[in-house]
């Protein structure tokens, strides 16, 4: 009898992941299928990004996935000249928060978009972004 393998799909998330597993590991599969997804509570309809396995409002754990579609508005951003350990090779890079109305999404601006191209309020879309060595995250693109 072999040991049951641990589902550690979330290890693939981002340049360095600090979380091995989560009950929303399917988020990684969706990214690999080219979709950025959040969860919606089947009981009360609350929408969550980042996706949650459990609804804080009604305590239900019955969730359905939805796609982060269309564009949101850039709320704020910063370009890093220094990075934490493990991210040195990515520098410089820009982190950002984008407001999609019912939810906001924290992430990175796509490589190649420089700071002077950015302004608060501009429209950005979130897209899955494969990285080296089978890793994956999502980044914001101009439409």
């Amino acid at each position, binding site marked *: 009898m072999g040991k049951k393998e641990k589902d550690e799909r979330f290890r693939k998330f981002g340049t360095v992941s600090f979380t091995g597993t989560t009950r929303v590991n399917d988020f990684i599969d969706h990214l690999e299928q080219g979709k950025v997804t959040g969860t919606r509570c089947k009981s009360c309809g609350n929408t969550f990004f980042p996706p949650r396995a459990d609804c804080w409002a009604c305590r239900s754990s019955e969730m359905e996935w939805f796609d982060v579609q269309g564009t949101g508005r850039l709320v*704020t951003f910063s370009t890093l000249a220094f990075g934490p350990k493990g991210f040195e090779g990515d520098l410089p890079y820009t982190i950002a928060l984008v407001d999609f109305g019912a939810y906001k999404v*924290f992430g990175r601006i796509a490589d190649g978009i420089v700071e002077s191209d950015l302004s608060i309020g501009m429209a950005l879309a979130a897209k899955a972004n494969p990285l080296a060595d089978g890793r994956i995250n999502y980044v914001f693109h101009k439409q």
Partner: protein
Amino acid sequence: MNDVAIIGAGQSTFVRYYPGSVRELAFEGFSDALGHAGIAAADIDASVVCSAPEYDLQRSPAGVFAEYLGLNPGPTFYVETLCSSGSTGLKLAYSLIKSGLHDVVAVVGFQKMSEISSAETQERMGRGADIQWESPFGTMMPAYYAMYARAHMNAYGTAPEDLAAIRVKASTYGQLNDRAVYRKAVTADMFTDPDNMMSGSVASPLRVGDCCANADGSSCIIVASAERAKSLCDKPVWIRGIGSSSAPVNLAGRDLFTGLAVAREAAGQAYKMAGIGPKDVDVAEVHDCFTIAEMMAYEDLGFAGPGEGRDLINGKETYLNGSIPVNVDGGLLSKGHPIGATGGSQIRTIVLQLRGEAGEIQVPDASVGLVHNIGGVGLYGNVTILGR
């Protein structure tokens, strides 16, 4: 309401590298506070130890310190709310005394950050945010606060030079503080001189000069019941208001980016409990881990209206001779920021002010002081109001 008092406050000198172990570092702040209170370790019946984990390898430091500081067999507790651990420790001490469980409690804060590299420190700090959904993008504290700075600039026209003015003020007083890490003068020109280190970008729009430095240090606040305070101390400083709050860790869960919701909530609680408003505060210590943090504190605490923080600093209203002196000990920007020791150091400065013991930085006749201490990027907010 005079029911819980601070009867002594101390801190070590904050340094880039402390040549000793964490228990020895804690001993320095603790001894300074005992000397200030004029009491012995035997007078203390419980202790609260405050730090943020993983900068040194000691697990459960409270038990280790209780022995080293001579506090056995008294009970000891460890509390942590990142950079606001010291204020949370004060709240726990207040509760222990107010409940009648203990009469004299020592709140010991410490952090030895020099045992790991700067990049490792940034990684640890970044993990004080959302490790599941944010850290994999390469976040770090300056970048989070930079996002608030960008939003504040966009909303109100706050300029990089307004933020630099806060650092210039900090250095004015940091030069006078012999327990501060950074004691050199900082001028506005340094921020625009490309050859000056201060002008280098860290996380846009924040520059090196906008950021406080890591440090090693310890602090200690000794808290007592009214009865014990009156018998042990000639100049008790009373805890008049204590507010604390939490907010969503992921920025995606927040709605406010021009101020910190936790600071506004905690300030409201503290003002209400003390029965005062911002205009009644004579001197304040605010959590200036970054210049933008002090700018937002002006507005979150009601010292200035939304977007008017820059008028306060440019009018020098937060200088020693201004209408509301803020961080006249040099702030975190000058003193350095040994996470778990920071809140205690802020409280100490206000205690000295209210006892008339602040020397060159004394605000004349200060009778009400405020401490604003933030953990993480507005993850935890603590506002404490003290009075004579």
